[in-house]
């Protein structure tokens, strides 16, 4: 850091520690005032637990103590909703959502899961001697009020999660949800940025961090819906690898508490509590300082140190939400720690003790280092230009003690801090979705020409080309991106999943993403199944083994204290559990971001649609036999795997026809066996191209395959052309197969049907014999949004 000679960064303007008057006489009303004024975002029952604790001790809590408890117990850090007891309207008591997910992973009992739902990331091993660490995070609230900084540090944070899991980061993913690009400025609620402004800032922020830190941004999605105008969503994922992973041990008494990396500043104060609250027009002003400032170069140097330092520390975690309070607080659980705050190197003087302790300044890792290893680690840091700070020691007395100039400013029993929060009890009203499918394509759809509907779909922002975004990210660095996000003759086609395989390895892994909030609006449980199915389709489509796959869940929801919202969340978790079982693909990590709501100054609440992102990561046994979506050779046969039903709920066909349908596509119980068969055919090199049917249905799938390959396709007549082309039924893949292998493929896939063939003439001929030129489709699909 630049050190101006005229500033002593350790100088302090305000060092006062305030005591907050909470004791046995404090009324619930007074507690509520304190809760609101300090932005603690605690429940009334939790404030009472705080009061009981301190009145029992006979002291008023310091601001440092109160803020530490608020961060540790925040929805963001403690996942109170996912851990709550839930009672439904029928009086039925459900297991907590987190326990449902954990139990499903335990029941699936997959041999390749090393660690799930503990620590910073899920850890798996598909190949002896090599482990992968997986994590996906959300950074929604920060990205809403400061798009660049919010997205930038979202990427930085999830990369640190992988470092905190003792893995070297190798690839990043992101899923972005914005309001429609053509949103009328005058319709925006007060304090909300126009979606274009948010979108540009977020994409810049992601590109800036990922490109500068030197990680390929390989997979993702961009979604547009009016539900995201006031609450944009930013999901950032990271995958790391290790050849020498050993399970972390706990810090031992006398281990030093070492902080590596960036300096502490006032950026990112109260981020965890801010993220746990509903936003409104004042959020930008009040919580502007909650968004951190990213510095990818500093984080890159910390990665370089950690790659060489694995033998030099006992435990490691990253400074994320809650800063040092959360990182050291978590590591001190069951052992205790003593921390001296004046040791922390500051960006500038004047930070109060609680600000140093709570700051979410970026690029900092906390390590437990045995005293005899400190010198070697310090030397390594010097060589890489990384700041090394000794903040204190782990003690063994189970007490978390924080001092400022040796004066205690916080003394908490780690057991109270981590286990003292009263269990939350919540009520849910379970949704009753409409699940009767139509018998054929609805009138609102059949009244339009199939060709017109298809062209409208290709131009829809959710389906249109994302190439201009993808080119902003370096997806080539490390040379391991074996199936890219863009595929085809000139590298402008949309692929399904991506495959990462080191240049000389025979094997690799695939990443697939499933997300469909439009299903979620009507049927949260089916949405969850659909997302899992889509993520699995995407990895299978590029050559991964569906029997060696794991899942990550990321929920972005509205306020769960609304009983119907919690009901939808619970239904989505039910869907996740049945999807995981259907594929024997266990969840290994997840994160929920709730309270994605915006209270307009007119009193109107804007909530996000239920948005579940499923990331599937699966083993690719033969990295030389991966498959892409682009059509390869004229004359080949096109085969559709999976059944098509007239299920148009949440479909993009309904969107482009300005219509509504409510029956969301159902899960096909045959899908797991279909995917297994497709994978076997790929290993036998009998499939030349493969693309999944998702938003827009089969018509969009074929159009994308044809555009990517710059080849034509002729589809055979169908009984119900509109359902055939535009239903978004699950479990479907389109295969391009050479004539010699068609009978083998059909034999391996019961129910699969020949739907057409690849042609040299540059037209897509639809089942009703109408034709669209590849060029015309490209013009619409690639038109700037």
């Amino acid at each position, binding site marked *: 850091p630049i050190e101006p000679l005229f500033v002593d960064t350790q100088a302090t303007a305000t060092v006062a520690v305030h005591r907050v008057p909470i004791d046995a006489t404090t009324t619930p009303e007074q507690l509520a005032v304190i809760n609101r004024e300090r932005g603690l975002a605690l429940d009334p029952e939790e404030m009472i637990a705080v009061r009981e604790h301190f009145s029992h001790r006979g002291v008023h809590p310091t601001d440092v103590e109160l803020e530490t408890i608020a961060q540790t117990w925040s929805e963001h850090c403690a996942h109170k909703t996912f851990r709550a007891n839930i009672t439904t309207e029928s009086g039925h008591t459900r297991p907590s959502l987190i326990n449902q997910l954990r139990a499903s992973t335990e029941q699936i009992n997959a041999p390749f899961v090393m660690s799930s739902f503990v620590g910073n990331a899920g850890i798996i091993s598909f190949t002896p001697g090599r482990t992968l660490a997986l994590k996906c995070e959300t950074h929604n609230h920060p990205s809403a009020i400061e798009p660049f900084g919010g997205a930038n540090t979202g990427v930085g944070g999830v990369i640190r999660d992988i470092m905190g899991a003792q893995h070297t980061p190798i690839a990043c993913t992101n899923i972005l949800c914005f309001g429609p690009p053509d949103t009328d400025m005058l319709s925006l609620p007060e304090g909300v940025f126009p979606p274009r402004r948010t979108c540009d800032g977020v994409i810049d922020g992601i590109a800036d961090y990922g*490109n*500068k830190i*030197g990680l390929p941004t390989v997979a993702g999605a961009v979604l547009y819906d009016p539900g995201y105008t006031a609450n944009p969503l930013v999901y950032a994922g990271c995958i790391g690898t290790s050849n020498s992973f050993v399970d972390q041990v706990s810090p031992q008494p006398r281990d030093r508490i070492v902080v590596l990396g960036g300096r502490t500043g006032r950026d990112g104060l109260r981020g965890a509590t801010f993220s746990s609250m509903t936003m409104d027009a004042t959020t930008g002003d009040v919580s502007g300082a909650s968004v951190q400032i990213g510095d990818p*170069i500093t984080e890159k140097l910390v990665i370089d140190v950690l790659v060489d330092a694995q033998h030099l520390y006992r435990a490691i975690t990253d400074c994320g939400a809650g800063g040092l309070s959360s990182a050291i607080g978590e590591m001190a659980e069951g052992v205790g720690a003593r921390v001296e705050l004046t040791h922390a190197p500051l960006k500038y003087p004047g930070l109060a003790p609680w600000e140093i302790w709570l700051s979410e300044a970026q690029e900092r890792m906390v390590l437990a280092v045995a005293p005899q290893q400190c010198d070697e680690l310090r030397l390594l840091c010097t*060589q890489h230009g990384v700041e090394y700070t000794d903040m204190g020691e782990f003690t063994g007395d189970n007490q978390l003690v924080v001092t400022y100039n040796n004066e205690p400013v916080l003394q908490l029993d780690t057991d109270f801090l981590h286990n003292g929060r009263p269990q939350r009890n919540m009520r849910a009203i379970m949704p009753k979705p409409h699940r009767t499918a139509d018998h054929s394509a609805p009138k609102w759809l059949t009244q339009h020409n199939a060709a017109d509907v298809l062209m409208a779909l290709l131009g829809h922002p959710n389906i249109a080309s994302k190439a201009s975004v993808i080119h902003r990210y370096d997806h080539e*660095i490390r*040379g391991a991106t074996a199936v890219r996000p863009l595929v085809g003759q000139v*590298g402008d086609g949309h692929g399904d999943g991506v495959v990462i395989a080191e240049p000389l390895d025979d094997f690799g892994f695939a990443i697939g993403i499933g997300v469909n909030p439009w299903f979620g609006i009507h049927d949260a449980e089916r949405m969850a199944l659909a997302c899992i199915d889509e993520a699995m389709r995407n990895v299978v489509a590029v050559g991964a083994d569906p029997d060696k796959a794991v899942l990550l869940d990321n929920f972005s929801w509205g306020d769960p204290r609304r009983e119907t919202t919690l009901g939808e969340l619970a239904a989505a978790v039910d869907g996740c559990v049945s999807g995981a079982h259907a594929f024997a693909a266990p969840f290994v990590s997840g994160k929920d971001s709730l309270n994605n709501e915006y209270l307009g100054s007119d009193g109107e609440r804007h909530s996000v649609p239920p948005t579940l992102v499923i990331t599937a990561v699966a083993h690719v046994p033969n990295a030389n036999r991966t498959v892409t979506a682009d059509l390869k050779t004229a004359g080949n046969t096109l085969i559709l795997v999976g059944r098509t039903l007239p299920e148009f709920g949440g479909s993009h066909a309904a969107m482009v026809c300005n219509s509504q349908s409510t029956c969301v596509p159902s899960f096909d119980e045959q899908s797991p066996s279909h995917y297994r068969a497709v994978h076997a055919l790929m290993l036998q090199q009998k499939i030349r191209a493969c693309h999944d049917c998702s938003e827009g249905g089969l018509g969009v799938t074929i159009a994308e395959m044809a555009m990517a390959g710059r080849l034509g396709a002729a589809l055979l007549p169908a009984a119900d052309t509109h359902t055939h082309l535009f239903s978004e039924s699950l479990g479907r893949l389109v295969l391009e197969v050479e004539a010699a292998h068609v009978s083998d493929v059909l034999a391996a896939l019961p129910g699969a049907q020949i739907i057409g063939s690849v042609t040299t003439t540059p037209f897509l001929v639809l089942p009703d014999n109408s034709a669209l030129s590849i060029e015309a489709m490209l013009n619409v699909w690639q038109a700037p949004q």
Partner: protein
Amino acid sequence: MSAPHALVLTAPGTNRHPDVMFALQQAGATTSALNMHQLREQPGAIDNAQMIVVAGGFSFADALGAGRLFALELSEIVGNAIQSAAQAGKPVIGICNGFQTLVRLGVLPGKHRAALGHNEVGGFQCSWISMKPTSHRSVWTQNLTEEIYCPIAHGEGRFTASEETLSHLRDNDQIALTYSGRNPNGSRDDIAGICDETGFVLGLMPHPENHIVPRQHPQYHRGQLNGLGLHLFTQGVSVANS
């Protein structure tokens, strides 16, 4: 013949050094990387190496302009050791941020000055391009016949120079690589890479180190296997060996 040793120089934010080290190893060299702190402690490292590589990335986060601070660091630590290495017949290569650094350092193109400006499209771009080897003076390209197909990943890659410099570069056969087909950044005369007057120093914006094995070709699934970047490194290693 023993494998030549390639020294890869890095600064805070350099991030493609593992890729170029892999490429050089596949081409038959041994490699080691030194950051500026380590280089300060091992002043003889440049003299002891047979090849010098300035790797790509975002040194110092591109503060004050891409490559500028890296160049200042290098000139302070090793003076003109890079020019001396080239004069002694050691192949030197700067890729992407390394090219920007060598231009800032004044090593490239040499007596005349050039610059790498912001891409014409206005921002960072990552995509695949073809480039044609065009110089017999450059020891890195003189025996190359095939075009190289590889990605670019940069925001400041638009080669610019005065008309006088450009005609000097042309006359002196210092234009080593030109974009073939699409010019991704608006470089003058489609220039992707240039060499210095000795021919031993090559600077280029694209990343041949990311196309070393056929599977890295983006149209691998369409049976396209041409345009390996490996050939450039093999050529460099063979010069270092001779």
